[in-house]
């Protein structure tokens, strides 16, 4: 088994449709797309990065959906109980539903900082909830790594280029014409 390179966990991009975790290696960002019990890995190489962006947004993530759904379910249950005789239980359930709804509302208002890295063939995205400093640090680190990797590739390409042919000399620098050679006659003994 070959020795794997070091992978540093940067963050995740959780959503209802898919979950992905992003790691950093010395030469690329690795995106682990989680589907059921398996991970599919993709890479954005630093020397292929085209654009890195950072923006702030409020996203309706998994937390909002889960707490919202639980709140709605509890609310329905509370209404059913309140329609019967159990007033105290119904009130308690109503309070729980309101608390769950408030959590869902708060979760949807929390700002999220997103770093998106566009490569030639794929892209990576990492979300940071309430951690602007970390998002900016990761953004800067990725930009620096991409810049260094692309400069290194450009330097290697330049080193491999064949040397250009010598330029033609100007008339001032041209060497003087050779003296005409004397006609060679037959050798006499």
């Amino acid at each position, binding site marked *: 088994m070959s020795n794997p390179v070091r992978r540093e*966990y940067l963050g995740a991009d959780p959503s209802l449709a898919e979950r992905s975790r992003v790691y950093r290696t010395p030469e690329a960002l690795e995106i682990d797309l989680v589907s059921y019990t398996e991970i599919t890995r993709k890479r954005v190489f630093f020397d292929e990065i085209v654009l890195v962006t950072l923006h702030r947004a409020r996203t309706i993530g998994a937390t909002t959906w889960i707490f919202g759904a639980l709140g709605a379910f509890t609310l329905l249950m509370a209404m059913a109980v309140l329609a019967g005789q159990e007033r105290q239980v119904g009130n308690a359930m109503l309070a729980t539903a309101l608390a769950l709804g408030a959590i869902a509302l708060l979760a949807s208002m929390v700002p999220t900082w997103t770093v998106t890295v566009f490569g030639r063939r794929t892209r990576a*995205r990492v979300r940071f909830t309430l951690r602007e400093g970390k998002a900016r640090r990761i953004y800067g680190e990725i930009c620096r790594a*991409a810049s260094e990797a*692309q400069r290194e590739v450009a330097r290697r390409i330049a080193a491999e280029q064949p040397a250009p042919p010598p330029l033609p000399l100007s008339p001032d620098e041209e060497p003087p014409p050779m003296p005409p050679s004397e006609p060679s006659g037959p050798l006499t003994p």
Partner: protein
Amino acid sequence: MPVPLPAYLGPACPRCGVALDATLMVAGEQLCPACSKTFQATPFAPPPPRGPRVETMAEAGPAGAVACAQHPGNAAVANCTRCGVFMCSLCRIDIDQQELCPACFDRLSSEGVLSSTRNRIRDYRGIAVLSGVAGCLLWILGPLTGLLTLFLAYQAFKQRRMMNESGGMAPLIFAVLLGLIQITGGVFFLWALVST
């Protein structure tokens, strides 16, 4: 059957997904023409991909260069780390600190030995967390599901060490805690059941 993801079409607005031309951008604050929202961006101009430069043979034999095993006209530049065959720049594959010929690369890659070429891996961390959460719904089976969660968490720790990862420990610690709680709760539940 998995639903195919939309094809990647290059740089786009990170907010609305409308395609953008990164070559026209300058680093700094950007305004998306489609959604009129701002984002910070740093564009790059990556060098074009290139193929290897192949050295051709001038003369074969002990005095000259050694020929590639696959391309007799090309000069060999390396030996395969695994089988030792001579390879030219076209055949040489640099991967995981090894220089491999195409045949050995195919073989090792299909056996899953080369870590760089593996792109489908079992997610033990996710399974451990799932087992921990699902086990909480089955208290009577707590000792069993707890042990299963701990075993899966151990596998996830091993996988993490094998992949040389750092960070991202929180879900694993959560799974271990859930496993321990399940075992304790399950044992207590069974003890209470037996004692009554």
